């Protein structure tokens, strides 16, 4: 090649035709999406750093790194001229302008990639000379400066233009620029992709330093949609993006979404370190399994928890039109995750570490010994029953010695540690990214913890200009130990097992250990049914490693221009091992053990998917832009599970706790399931002049779960958008973007169903007959339902996007109606049929209606910049139809103690409270007389008044009424972040309204026996119960028999769970760049710092559908950390 250039004197112009096409891309996504994106506008970016190099070499370089081809006649171009050039991520025009500045060479770009070099005179004659940027030679004032981002990192390649002219320059590798201007009044327009454009009046300055701020709402921001990307401008569906993930020191992805995105409700499952918060996108759509589909780097993901450190972006597809391309698994919304990728350039090494401490936010207070005996004496007096000697402090003075505060004993400060290291980089052909993270959280209850080790590697390799292959690999190992904090055990025994309730109920005059040094007998005497809180926690001995290995290999092939074929195979293997040892423990209160037991469970799950897509992008007549997608995918899931219970180990030495050493093997279980899914999908995206947008998609899914005649279902969607702000009649200086959107689509859900609902496997049961151990029984304990069909959810969405000039103000509003049709519901069957569980049937309809608003505001003022964003979602959930022949179906699963307060009914939200209504306490004799005459024959002063809705003179189940549900109707978040010089600060508030909880925690710790009290200690709420000496108390009287049924399920136990939480507050400082590092930010963060709520339970975020059993409370956490990028 080189020698070809050196041939001189040829008469015919030498047309260079070597098509050594290379692809580089500016986009951070090294996946398929990036390729799509880069095709949309065909803006390839170039990075050049040449010192005293000949033009011909520079041209060679450009050709090598891009798709551009140079065509020129050697006569007109001085190929040997030496130039020095330093440009980062510059566009071709900038490069050419600088290369041929002050020469006689002009350039012209044809068909996007052909660069024709001509003599200036020729160029002047050519009609496309308007593309030429000329920089005049006139003597001018020179100004210089640097452009940095908001963390003081230089921004190479930022564009500086003089307003009103085509003159300008770009910054160099160090973010420096210099420019000549002809007027002191000139205004510089500084811009960079992803940052808000700034205008700076020169005002005679010679040095101007500019700090650009990330533009959170940039219209050219690339947004992931299913199987592709669009720019924000082109969006027609309802999609939300979670921001500020990195700044919040979160340990779980779900936490990053809480309050951060409108329309997404994240319900934390208390503070249990092993639990994962639940994500509900646009309300409760169905009554059973409903989880959003996670797509990581373009493939359905069923792997382990994703390390937040690895996440580049989080996108939530909310409306059906956006999600329906994912069909069957998308009814509950789709969350798209991209992980960080390597970039071409030097290897970047990032470290992140934080450590902190978490504490219980609001510790419950139990009665002390004196209060404990006092309240029991009151309870006996209230019941007209002689006081017990046991509660007589005079005859039994030991009762009054305060020995243990059990609540203090079970809680502790838990240490959180998190370490991450990332290594990213690449060359022209190859990019890679790898990271390793370790997180360990100690729970705030003793002996509870969770840890996670995660490793991720991804890379992409360009084999040729047409073929690219890549891979994603991740491995996670999690382990942990939690404690039971509810009030319901497997055996139906309900009122004494949650550990927090147990600590309240344990007798304060008993010490932790008895004189022999073993756990003392807390249940002795009249203390009621109590377990030893410390012993129970310390005895937990579970080893439960869960390993996930995920791998994905993909190939992209570009047979012709604008057409991309991609095939991708992904597999996830998760294997879980559970080993719990239940020892014979020398514990005076846990004497029920005659032997020890080892439970061992193993589960293996393999998910694979193979997806093939064709994507064609083109623009006709500069106005009609098309993106066509067609695809096909296969998915397979299988899970195998086996369990074994071994008993009677002679030695409890951990080294000898292996199944072969057990004397008895009792319970062997096994199960297997498998299901498959085949999908065809296609979509068209179209826009006219970025003004009118249209998209339509259809997916056809076939599932192995359903019978042949119902197996296939089509999931269509259609969406339109209109950018008003692009219309000529709609010109406004204030509005930079105003767009209206509307969409409709359908998605399916059959996740609730087991793998074989149409052909149920028989159950293998253990039965006891004569002889030792179990004998096997086999039975069909259900009913196959050959008619079972897809649950279909249908969403209509109307949206509006608005941005003011320079994106100072942004507003996104969406209104939706989401209907779940053919609701997969377990409707009750006749008890006479004799099957254990009701089969799923397609019956009923649920509607969620909602409004979502997200507002953002950004402002830059010199050294001070800030960003304010808020979002709010209003959701109304309603059951429209239930099941034929049923108006109300009581929920007989969710309970606290023996209460089942929930039911589903037409016209009510899913899982509504259905209870007897109460009307305060009976505080006067007249009220008591009245109550006795109206259905409460045993009423006394201090009892609850119930309302006899049907006026039949009896208070019973027929008097129940509906009283709202746990799911909040309003959820909101507010984020404020600011930078001043090298300091950054952010504060994040989050809250909900409209949710109601059934405070079973208060119920079971204040009236633990359900006949009121029976010996165990009580929560301090007991001090606020009615007795003759406390007539203004808020709670009904303590008694030992509860003849009035104060403790029956009634709305007295319902409380609003509205709360506002200072979820996160962070302060950070970024150190000036040093010879050792590019970036070092140190920060301090507080999580769940303050909560404002009137809810009296442990935490207003109640799981279990709002039925509070005193669950593990959310902790308050303070952390210190740093992020470091090495030089």
């Amino acid at each position, binding site marked *: 090649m080189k020698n070809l250039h050196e041939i001189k004197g040829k008469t015919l112009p030498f047309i260079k035709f070597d098509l050594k096409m290379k692809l580089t891309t500016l986009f951070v996504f090294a996946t398929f999406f990036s390729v799509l994106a880069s095709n949309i506008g065909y803006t390839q970016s170039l990075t050049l750093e040449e010192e005293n190099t000949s033009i011909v070499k520079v041209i060679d370089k450009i050709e090598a790194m891009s798709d551009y081809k140079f065509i020129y006649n050697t006569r007109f171009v001085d190929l040997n001229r030496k130039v020095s050039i330093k440009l980062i991520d510059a566009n071709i025009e900038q490069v050419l302008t600088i290369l041929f500045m002050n020469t006689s060479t002009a350039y012209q770009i044809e068909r996007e990639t052909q660069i024709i070099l001509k003599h200036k005179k020729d160029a002047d004659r050519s009609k496309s000379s308007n593309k030429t940027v000329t920089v005049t030679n006139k003597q001018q004032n020179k100004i210089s400066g640097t452009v940095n981002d908001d963390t003081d990192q230089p921004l190479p390649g930022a564009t500086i233009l003089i307003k009103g002219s085509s003159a300008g320059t770009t910054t160099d590798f160090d973010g420096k620029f210099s420019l000549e201007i002809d007027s002191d009044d000139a205004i510089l327009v500084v811009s960079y992709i992803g940052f808000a454009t700034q205008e700076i009046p020169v005002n005679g300055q010679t040095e101007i330093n500019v700090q650009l701020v990330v533009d959170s709402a940039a219209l050219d921001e690339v947004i992931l949609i299913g199987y592709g990307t669009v720019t924000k401008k082109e969006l027609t569906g309802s999609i939300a993006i979670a921001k500020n993930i990195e700044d919040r020191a979160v340990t779980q992805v779900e936490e990053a979404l809480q309050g951060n995105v409108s329309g997404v409700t994240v319900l934390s499952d208390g503070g249990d370190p092993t639990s994962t918060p639940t994500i509900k996108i646009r309300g409760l759509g169905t009554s059973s399994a409903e989880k959003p589909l996670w797509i990581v780097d373009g493939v359905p993901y069923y792997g382990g928890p994703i390390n937040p450190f690895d996440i580049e972006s989080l996108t939530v597809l909310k409306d059906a039109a956006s999600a329906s391309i994912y069909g069957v698994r998308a009814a509950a919304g789709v969350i798209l995750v991209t992980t960080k990728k390597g970039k071409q350039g030097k290897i970047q090494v990032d470290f992140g570490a934080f450590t902190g401490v978490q504490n219980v936010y609001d510790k419950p207070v139990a009665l002390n010994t004196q209060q404990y005996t006092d309240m029991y004496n009151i309870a006996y007096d209230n019941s007209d029953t002689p006081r017990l000697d046991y509660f007589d402090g005079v005859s039994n003075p030991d009762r009054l010695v305060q020995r243990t505060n059990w609540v203090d004993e079970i809680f502790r400060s838990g240490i959180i540690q998190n370490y991450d290291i990332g290594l990213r980089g690449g060359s022209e052909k190859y990019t890679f990214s790898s990271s390793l993270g370790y997180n360990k959280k100690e729970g705030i209850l003793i002996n509870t913890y969770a840890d996670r080790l995660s490793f991720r590697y991804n890379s992409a390799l360009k084999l040729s200009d047409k073929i690219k292959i890549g891979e994603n690999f991740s491995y996670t190992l999690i382990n942990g130990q939690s404690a039971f904090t509810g009030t319901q055990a497997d055996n139906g025994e309900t009122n004494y097992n949650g550990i927090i309730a147990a600590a309240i109920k344990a007798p304060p005059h008993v010490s932790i250990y008895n004189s022999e040094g073993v756990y003392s007998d807390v249940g002795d005497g009249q203390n009621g049914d109590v377990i030893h809180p410390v012993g129970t926690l310390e005895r937990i001995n579970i080893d439960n490693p869960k390993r996930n290995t995920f791998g994905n290999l993909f190939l992209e092939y570009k047979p012709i221009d604008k057409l991309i074929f991609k095939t991708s195979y992904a597999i996830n293997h998760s294997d879980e091992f559970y080993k719990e040892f239940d020892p014979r423990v020398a514990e005076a209160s846990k004497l*029920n053990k005659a032997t020890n*037991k080892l439970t061992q469970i193993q589960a293996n799950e393999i998910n694979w998917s193979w997806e093939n897509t064709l994507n064609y992008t083109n623009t006709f007549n500069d106005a009609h832009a098309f993106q066509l997608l067609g695809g096909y995918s296969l998915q397979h899931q299988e899970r195998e599970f086996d369990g074994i219970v071994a008993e009677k180990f002679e030695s409890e030495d951990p080294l000898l706790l292996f199944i072969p050493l057990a004397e008895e093997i009792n319970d062997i279980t096994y199960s297997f399931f498998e*299901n498959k899914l085949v999908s065809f999908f296609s979509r068209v995206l179209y826009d006219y002049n970025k003004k009118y947008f249209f998209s339509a998609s259809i997916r056809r899914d076939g599932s192995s779960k359903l019978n042949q005649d119902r197996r296939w279902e089509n999931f269509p969607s259609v969406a339109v958008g209109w950018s008003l702000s692009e219309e000529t009649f709609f010109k406004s200086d204030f509005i930079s973007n105003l767009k209206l959107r509307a969409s409709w689509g359908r998605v399916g859900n059959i996740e609730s169903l087991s793998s074989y609902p149409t052909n149920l496997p028989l159950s293998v049961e253990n039965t006891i*007959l004569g002889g030792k151990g179990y004998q096997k029984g086999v039975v069909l304990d259900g009913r196959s339902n050959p008619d079972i069909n897809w649950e279909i959810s249908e969403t209509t969405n109307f949206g509006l996007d608005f941005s003011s000039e320079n994106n100072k103000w942004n507003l996104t509003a969406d209104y939706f109606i989401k209907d779940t049709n053919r609701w997969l519901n377990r409707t009750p069957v006749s*008890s*006479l049929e004799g099957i254990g569980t009701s089969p799923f049937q397609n019956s009923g309809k649920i509607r969620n209606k909602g409004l979502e608003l997200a507002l953002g505001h950004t402002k830059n003022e010199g050294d001070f910049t800030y960003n304010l964003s808020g979002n709010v979602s209003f959701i109304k959930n309603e059951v429209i139809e239930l099941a034929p022949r049923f108006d109300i179906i009581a929920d007989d699963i969710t309970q606290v103690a023996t209460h089942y307060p929930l039911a589903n009914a037409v016209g009510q939200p899913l899982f509504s409270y259905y209870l007897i209504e109460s009307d305060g306490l009976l505080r006067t004799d007249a009220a008591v007389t009245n109550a006795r005459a109206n259905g409460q024959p045993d009423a006394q002063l201090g009892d609850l008044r119930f309302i006899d809705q049907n006026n039949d003179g009896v208070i019973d189940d027929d008097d129940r009424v509906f009283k709202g549900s746990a799911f909040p109707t309003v959820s909101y978040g507010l984020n404020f972040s600011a930078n001043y010089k090298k300091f950054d600060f952010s504060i994040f508030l989050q809250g909900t309204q409209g949710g109601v909880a059934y405070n079973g925690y208060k119920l079971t710790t204040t009236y633990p026996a359900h006949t009121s009290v029976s010996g165990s200690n009580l929560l301090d709420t007991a001090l606020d119960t009615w007795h003759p000496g406390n007539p203004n108390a808020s709670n009904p009287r303590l008694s030992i028999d509860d003849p009035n049924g104060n403790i029956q399920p009634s709305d007295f136990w319902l409380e609003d769970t509205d709360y506002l939480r200072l979820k996160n507050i962070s302060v950070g400082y970024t150190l000036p760049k040093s010879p050792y590092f590019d970036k070092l930010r140190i920060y301090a963060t507080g999580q769940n710092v303050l909560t404002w709520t009137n809810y009296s339970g442990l935490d207003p975020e109640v799981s279990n559908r709002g039925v509070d059993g005193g669950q593990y409370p959310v902790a308050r956490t303070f952390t210190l950390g740093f992020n470091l990028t090495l030089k």
Partner: protein
Amino acid sequence: MKKYKYLSFLILVTLVVFTSCTDEFLEVEPQGAPTAASFFKTETDVTRATNALYLMNDFQGTYGRGMFLYSIIPSDDFVVGKSKSQIEQIKDFVTTGSGSYTRDIWPKHFQVVKRANDILNNVPDIEGVSDDVKNFALGNAYFMRGLAYFQLSLLYGDDRAGIPIVDETTTDFYISRPESVTVSYEYAAENFTKAAALLPLFSDLSPSDYGKAHKNAAYAYLAKTHLHNAEFDSASWQKVIDACNAVTATQEVLEPNFKDVFKIDNNWGNEYIWSIPSNTTGGSILPGASLENKGWSKYNGWGYFAPTLDLYESYQAGDLRRDATLLVFGDAFEFFGETRRYWSTKNLTGIQLKKYMEPYSYPNGEHLNGNGDHPTTDLNVPLMRLSAVYLMRAEAKIALGQNGDTDLNIVRERAGLPAITAATLAHVKYERRAEFAGELFGRFEDLCRWGDSAELKQSLRGRQHDDQEDPDSGFTIYEVWPERSNFDLLKHRVWPIPPNVIDSSLGLIKQNER
């Protein structure tokens, strides 16, 4: 370059091939467990289907708490041993039927009925399985279906309404209750009759079939069904006698000593007709549920059932059954290999039910379930004993004006009591109370069918000891349970049907009005 092109081509070809066979790809056969299509083919299948009839044996909602709470607690023999509102509500006849301890009785019984019907529908047509095997399975199915109907009838049926009849031909399960419990008793009787014809004697069973139905169990329950039905249909008395005769034709010798009846060694002894098979893995938790609360720090007893002083004092002088049935302060007994004298700080009456305590006498708890939250033992809990056959026949004879002395005296003699002549119903009442105290479907159901409301209403007494840790301590007698004046025989002899059963019946199953 070329190799990539080939690769792409290869992928495209594979794609096309895969696309064309998607329907095959989507066919998935259940694995890991049999399906309806692959089951009921072999003898093992028949045995396993038969085993599945016995799901309630290890279910504490029926044979632990469950029916025992409904049967033992409301009588004048027992009070609730520790504060438990669900149980107290049963004692006071104010339960709603929704309590977790009892709400599963009804549905579990219908699960048994369903399983019996599956056998009756499938087993006769299996090829290659012997008639003996088939008859045994069918006999078990009829017996268990009969037992389900008998027990449900007793708990929920009276002359206002019976139990909806489901048989192997039923396809529509929305069925109303029959007008009287007699209909469901007759249905139970019909099942027991069929079972008796198909089943072998217990003595002909191989040990591996112990715990399953046999001929005399069917006859004895046939007798008991008619005994209860006789209240509504006097023609049943003769049927009681006939059925009892059928039992004693092959089984007539009682276990010689009353106290030996409740020993692990005699699980399958002379007295055995029907029991809940139990072992250290599962079975009935009644022994643990009735043991001293916390078991004197040795085992997790639950202390639910406290015998009354009224029961203790009801025994005639010299009746050996009192000390075999009850423990009072100072009584010696074996416990975890040691002799101890009874005291209790927790028992409300100062009296402990001793009948089921033999498993606790052994050192190291070797006959006990290691899981104290599921306190089963190696002792089978008897549900039907040979002495019941004699007492049923005696009662039937007296009811028909015949002489029941012989049958009654067989039971009295073993109890160490003198023979009586010209026995009346009053004598039967004494014997039944003394014999079956703390056993399922005894005192409470007897008082109801005899119409003895007064006994059920009266206040109940216990002993309050001065020093509850001293076996020799003195005591005062006190009222441990107040009079239950609200008891209305017409309403309270049956229990509320669990509300979710009513709710899911489309209005066809009417609640027992209380």
